């Protein structure tokens, strides 16, 4: 998106909108990650506490998802730049 078409007041407005959106996206990332790693890692309901295997799986699942999301971000930016040409 080309920001030069907007005046300063409009750019301030968009800046605030994007900050709110970043906060909302962060909360969505958080709740999505909890649900995804719970679904993929927790399957033993013979006790109330996470087993060490489950805890380890949750940590790796979260790390892997964040690395995945980061790499998609890089390819996404490149592909978008390509389209803008």
């Amino acid at each position: 998106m080309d920001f030069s078409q907007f005046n300063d007041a409009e750019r301030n407005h968009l800046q605030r909108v994007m900050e709110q959106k970043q906060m909302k996206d962060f909360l969505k990332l958080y709740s999505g990650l909890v649900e995804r790693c719970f679904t993929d890692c927790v399957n033993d309901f013979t006790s109330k506490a996470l087993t060490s295997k489950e805890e380890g799986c949750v940590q790796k699942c979260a790390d892997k998802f964040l690395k995945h999301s980061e790499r998609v971000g890089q390819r996404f930016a490149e592909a978008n730049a390509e389209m803008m040409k």
Partner: protein
Amino acid sequence: MSFFMNNAANQSVNMQNMAMAEQELEMVSDLFNRIVSSCHQKCIPKTYIEGELNKGEAVCIDRCVAKFFEVNKSVGTKLQQMSGAGLPM
């Protein structure tokens, strides 16, 4: 949560506070809905022999809610460490 609707008329509503409170309500209800759907997936077979919860399903639900909270906490800690941001966790 009891409310006293007496001399509200002459008081002002701080919209900033209201937005924060509404966001927190939204987060709590989103967490609840995700636990309901995840623990239904894990604890309730789709054969639906009867409408009541049997013993096994009830015990599974209790443990599932407890474990979900644990995962919620450990992922929250990881994200806070990484971003260093103060999160309304």
